[in-house]
């Protein structure tokens, strides 16, 4: 699913777009724990993965850069500070913000076909 469609589904605001790029997203992870995001990082799939989080500090962007995640949706109406936005621009990571709670955002995206990345804690075969 195109990120622009995800933006519509979540009624999200585009905070920082990267060069008009509209990546294809297949998977999502939702967490406020960056160590968990890193621990569940999977070979190859993270390129098509979206992070849903309520944390807005620079470490969120760093975590995505390290694991290869290309887009972040901030939930619960949170907006990142200028230094987080600037780092995302440097790292070529798209930032969106929505007013939904994390659970709601996850439900909408999962219902629309976005899956958990394959792995010990999120095998798409068990997810439906």
């Amino acid at each position, binding site marked *: 699913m195109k990120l622009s469609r995800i933006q519509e589904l979540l009624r999200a605001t585009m905070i920082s777009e990267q060069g008009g790029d509209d990546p294809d997203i297949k998977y999502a992870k939702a967490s*406020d*724990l*960056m*160590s*968990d*995001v*890193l*621990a569940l*990082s999977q*070979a*190859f799939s*993270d390129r098509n993965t979206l992070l849903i*989080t309520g*944390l807005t*500090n*620079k*470490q*969120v962007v*760093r*975590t995505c*850069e*390290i*694991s*290869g995640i290309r887009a972040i949706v901030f939930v619960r109406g949170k907006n990142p500070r200028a*230094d987080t936005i600037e780092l995302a621009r440097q*790292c070529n990571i798209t930032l969106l913000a929505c007013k939904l709670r994390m659970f709601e955002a996850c439900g909408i995206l999962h219902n629309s076909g976005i899956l958990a990345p394959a792995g010990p804690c999120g095998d798409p075969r068990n997810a439906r």
Partner: protein
Amino acid sequence: MRAEALLHQEYAIRGGDFVNAGESSCKIRNTLRQIGIDSEVVRRIAIAAYEAEMNVVMYAHHGKMEVNVYPEEIRLTIDDSGPGIADIDLAMQPGYSTASEEMREMGFGAGMGLPNIKKNADVFNLTSRVGKGTRLEINILLNGKNG
């Protein structure tokens, strides 16, 4: 005898510097990508480096991260001056953490760092002296367990 490193880089890490935390690991990631290292190897090194860098920022006074690229493997060494780890077996248990509230607010300190580093390493060595500091050495083979 070990071959000479094809690439050697060193980065200083300051304890408590949450603003720049992760910058060195991102630089290492970008350098390894630029020289054409396999993307899966880069991902594993970058995750291990980032978790290790965060550990120095969170717990130590200062540290040094060194990366050496050899024809067969990449070696990452992180030395820090700090409180050290009294019980390494306990520290290695997933979920065990002595993190402060500030660290947890940054999204770290969940007790997953060291197990996560080990998971991504082909060789993992952690030594520590209480009151002095900690040394972490990891090797990732260029044709390793996930490569």
